[in-house]
């Protein structure tokens, strides 16, 4: 494939440092319907690779990169299987089907790999399938050997968990549910809970959170928008509805719930820059936030809806994707649109998690 440098495509809009041999380069991996993982070379602004996965439909959902970025795991097959894929060859190395004829098990949104690359943690929600009736079973977190995909252990967990993220040292596993649940990554025991829906209940309605986009790679900070209403204001007051940002730093373990602006638009998801100073939210607008002051900075209209946000490793580009079938670049400072890459066959990315990773050039 002929690689055209991004600067040639975008003129002088981007002042990227020239890459030297061995320097890391950002790639984006986007699952698209019905069976594809599409790797985009962000420097070349081109599709680098299309990996097709057998029996993956209707769409692969959550991709997770191994720490060395040589292997990608993905939830596939109506959320009932996980596959391990060699990123270079595109070959499926291993697969586990969670369900049996007697028991259907879905893994909806939550999966992460331990920092040492040894363990894959997957949130699972099962139902027992009797001949004439179903029985909902308790949810759990399943820990798989990342090499063999053998089940190592299971730990009970609260229901309604979406995103999961290991702490940087691998000791803890964070899970977003109705609150932030923190598990001992070794034993699977829940060791701490911090309020999300329970936050500031004396002042506001319980925050509403829909966190289904795993996109914390470049910063190590998980960021989730949430929405609530202040109790001391009339619901018709434009200032009554509030947008908040939850952040969780996998390095320090610090989590913050903060009110950032009046709720005049929705963001489907947000992401934080590597310097941890800015957050970006997207849906029908792209918005930047100053995380040091907790205030909005700038907002621009988008030509269509985008669901997911990633920030480049150097913090200079915001990548939007999801909903339809492209990955679009925006200047992280000016929020000016720089360009986009169309995915093959116009296949929809839908609400799948889109991940950013770096590897040596």
């Amino acid at each position, binding site marked *: 494939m002929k690689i055209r440098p991004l600067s040639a495509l975008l003129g002088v809009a981007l002042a990227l440092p020239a890459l030297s041999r061995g320097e890391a380069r950002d790639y984006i991996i986007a699952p698209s319907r019905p069976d594809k993982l599409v790797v985009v070379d962000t420097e070349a602004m081109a599709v680098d690779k299309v990996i097709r996965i057998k029996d993956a439909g209707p769409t692969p959902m959550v991709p997770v990169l191994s720490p060395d970025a040589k292997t990608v795991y993905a939830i596939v097959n109506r959320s009932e299987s996980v596959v391990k894929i060699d990123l270079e060859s595109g070959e499926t190395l291993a697969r586990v089907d969670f369900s049996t004829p007697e028991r259907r098990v879905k893994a909806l949104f939550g999966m992460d790999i331990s920092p040492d690359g040894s363990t894959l943690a997957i949130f699972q929600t099962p139902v027992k399938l009797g001949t004439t009736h179903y*029985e909902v079973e308790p949810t759990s977190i399943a820990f798989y050997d990342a090499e063999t995909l053998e089940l190592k252990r299971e730990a009970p967990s609260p229901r309604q968990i979406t995103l999961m993220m290991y702490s940087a040292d691998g000791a803890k596993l964070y899970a977003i549910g109705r609150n932030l649940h923190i598990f001992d990554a070794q034993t699977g025991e829940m060791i701490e809970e911090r309020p999300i829906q329970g936050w500031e209940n004396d002042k506001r309605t319980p925050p509403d959170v829909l966190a289904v986009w795993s996109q914390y790679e470049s910063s190590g900070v998980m960021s989730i928008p949430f929405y609530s209403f202040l109790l001391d204001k009339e619901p018709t007051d434009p200032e009554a509805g509030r947008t908040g940002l939850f952040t969780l730093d996998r390095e320090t373990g610090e989590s913050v719930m903060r009110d950032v602006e009046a709720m005049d638009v929705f963001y489907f998801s947000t992401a934080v820059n590597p310097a941890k100073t800015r957050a970006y939210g997207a849906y029908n607008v792209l918005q930047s936030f100053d995380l040091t002051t907790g205030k909005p900075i700038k907002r621009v209209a988008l*030509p*269509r809806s985008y669901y997911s946000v990633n920030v480049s490793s150097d913090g200079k580009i915001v990548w939007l994707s999801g909903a339809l079938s492209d990955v679009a670049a925006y200047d992280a400072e000016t929020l000016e649109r720089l360009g986009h890459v169309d995915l093959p066959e116009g296949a929809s990315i839908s609400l799948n998690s889109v991940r950013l990773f770096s590897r040596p050039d």
Partner: protein
Amino acid sequence: MTSLSRLLLATTAVLLGAGAARAADGAEVLDSACGACHAREEGGYDRIDAVRKTPEAWDMTVQRMGRNHGVSLEPEERAAVVRYLADTRGLSVAETEDWRYILEREPVAQDLGPNARMSETCGRCHSYARVALQRRTPEDWRHLVNFHLGQFPTLEYQALARDRDWWGIAQNEIMPFLAETYPLGEAPPAADLDLSGEWPVAGRQPGRGDYAGLLTLTATESGHDAALRLDFADGSSESFTGSGALYGAGEWRASLASPEREIRQVFALKEDGVLEGRWFELGRDVVGGRLTAARAGEGAAPRILGVSPGRLRAGETAEVLVTGVGLTGELQLPEGLTAEILSASDREVKLKLSAPEALGAVSLALGEAAAPEPFVVFGALDRISISPETAISRVGDGGGPIPRTPAQFEAFGWLNGPDGAPSTEDDVFVGRFPAQWRTENFDAAAEAMRDADYAGSIDQNGLFTPGVAGPNPERPMMANNIGNLKVVAEVEDAGRSLQAEAHLYATVQRFVDALIR
């Protein structure tokens, strides 16, 4: 024909009693096909005998067994087993009374649960009526709730679910409420009646007007042949033929067609022998009409089915058609209203009515048969309103498989009543009035998106036809032709222009549809 309307046609055809859908066959299908998994024990078939519901609900179950569990039935087998289940495990008409709008696809209805918890838990995805039209054992309600989360695992992540302990609430509040409110009880016996005969009908198709007519039913081996003639007050007529069947205790379902359109009838056979319900166009169920019918003939209890028009302006004369059965009694009028009988039969009486002064709402009768609605003699309207006050239309067509869903509006005329104040309980409903119709942007956001220009258009019969589906490159963000609209009606009455507004959400397609929404 689109694939969707073919699907609806196939679905509808099941509830016809068409072909050899006899009860004995239904019992055989139940035993061989259903009984293969649903063990027959002392209390009957596992699960199947723990439930009573409407013919539509049984058909949805049989459909799901085919779609999700590979139960393969020939169309006539499916029809037979649905009919048998509806006959043996159905609801009484009284049990369905408050919720029939969902079976009738009545567009002017408000679906309300008994409290916010039930509305948010059940009515969030489907009508609450769908719940209230079922009876189950406590164990079976528990199975049903388990099925919901088991089949739709994202359910507990959706809005109005993710903000609470959904599964805890479902187990500890919803299941006990359902078990107590809608217990299994006893199935009413199937009516199994010969409905053959002539049934004079009266009713109204919103947007087109009042009609009278005749439904002729002839019993066949598997149900009834049906012929329907509608004579509209505007002078037009339409004749339909088809077939139907009576399910369970009194659920009449029929499919008929005229050269122009196919319709479906969803009527209840009431205790007093009257058929009452709604007919609607197949694939465009917003268009249709309510209808009441009573069987004519010797011994028919005198009954007025309709009076059209149901109003008279003081100082004027009007020809009024009274439709019914056994209309042999003496005309009874209030003081101040005079009548000339233009023609009279036991099914139809034509009157020329006049009144010098406004009388308000009065009663008309022929012998013991009273008109079902008050007759109104008025001078001038005090106000108008639009029905429905809030409506939904849906984009469609545009190359996609889903047709557009229009919205039908009517202008209602009102008197303030004895208290002289508008919008109070004693207001007098005068009837429907022709109006000038238009749409406007509902608010500033709609104005900015120019919704009124894109979302569709309303004709002078109050029928709003939405725009085509799909992204529109002319609109910001390629928005669909959706819109937030104000519907405005203007009625000229006695030299005054009266105006009313309604709210129309011109929204996206209904991508998942079911016999019971």
